[in-house]
């Protein structure tokens, strides 16, 4: 028996756009990873916290086009497709947007590309607003990006999805793919968490006492 899943429709260029830059992307790999944390610091959590990441490895369609190449129009459909693909994978793990409390995003650009190529996808409404909408959030999505060889590690920050600046939700998740990105590829990342950090207890901006820099006086002596 063979699995019935087929994603051939995702691999190919965009219909009618195969001769354009945005039609020159290709999807090589999808990796979905979840981390369930059951205990921390020797104490069992009341319920496990799950972090989920979905990664897509695509061909960088802007390789060879130089820094004059526009990055406003050509990423639109690619970014929207990736938002749909990655968000669906995450929702399949969490069981819906209601379980998601924090989110993040990222890109690892292969060595032949520009950092701007990753930004062209993740820092656009076609990617970020779609993720926000599907995950039922409002906040600006935390991000990390880097350029590196295959197997490069990216630590993606997550923030609370409604207002962003809620300290108990500040957390990160580590991602890497051993054989990606190739020099002419980009790895795109969407990340979500079903909870806060385990046992958060550092307060927040409403409970911090007022301080000034005098607390640092003498710190180097």
């Amino acid at each position, binding site marked *: *028996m*063979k*699995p*019935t*899943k*087929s*994603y*051939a429709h*995702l*691999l190919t260029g965009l219909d009618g756009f195969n001769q354009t830059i945005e039609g020159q992307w*290709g*999807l*090589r*790999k*999808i*990796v*979905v*990873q*979840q*981390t*369930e*944390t*059951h*205990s*921390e610091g020797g104490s069992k959590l009341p319920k*496990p916290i799950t972090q989920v990441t979905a990664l897509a490895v695509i061909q960088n369609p802007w390789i060879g086009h130089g820094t004059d190449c526009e990055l406003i129009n050509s990423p639109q459909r690619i970014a929207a497709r990736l938002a749909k693909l990655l968000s669906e994978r995450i929702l399949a793990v969490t069981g819906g947007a209601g379980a998601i409390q924090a989110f993040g995003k990222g890109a690892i650009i292969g060595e032949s590309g520009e950092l701007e190529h990753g930004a062209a996808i993740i820092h656009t409404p076609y990617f970020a607003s779609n993720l926000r909408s599907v995950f039922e959030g409002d906040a600006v999505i935390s991000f990390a990006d880097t350029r590196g060889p295959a*197997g490069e590690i990216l630590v993606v920050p997550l923030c609370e999805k409604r207002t962003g600046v809620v300290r108990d939700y500040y957390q990160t*998740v*580590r991602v*890497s793919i*051993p*054989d990606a990105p190739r020099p002419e590829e980009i790895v795109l990342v969407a990340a979500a968490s079903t909870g806060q950090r385990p046992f958060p207890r550092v307060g927040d901006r409403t409970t911090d006492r007022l301080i000034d820099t005098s607390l640092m006086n003498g710190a180097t002596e």
Partner: protein
Amino acid sequence: MKLRKVFTLVEETLEEGGEAVDPVARIAVVAAVIENPWAGKGFVEDLTPGIDSVAGELGLLLSARVAAALDAPIEAYGKAGIVGLNGEIEHASGLIHTLQFGNPFRDIASATTLLPAVEKRSGAGRGFDIPLKHITDMKLRSHHQTIEVSFADAPHADEILIALAAAAQGRPKQRLRTFGTDPGATV
């Protein structure tokens, strides 16, 4: 069994060598991170009580999880035991090289062969390769494959990370001669 984390990874390959892989090639890995049952006890001669307290439960947990994650009939499989820096490789081997651990996976996969394995000692978050082979015929070349994984923050020095891997197919674009048909080969 003191469980700290469970990792689940599903990798889908849609293209290899520039050609579409259709249906997509799927591999799933599930790893559990537990406290080393022998942590802090010095050299323990008889590992069987510790093995019996953990291995069966681990086998049931991981095999059910990895079969669900793969979401397709299992054609190839493998296992891993990664012991943290304070432990012995024998501790990881003890947990995975037992029928209590392996049989639940063989049952779910309708498998008959031994599970290929990696056993090593490692710091947290380091990469390791899990070998996979066909579930009923270890000579089936098309299904010899490996998946590299690394899980952040595990295993700690007094922990063991135990993993199962399952693939829904052989290598993407596999096209080698079958075992025993190489020119001049005598088997």
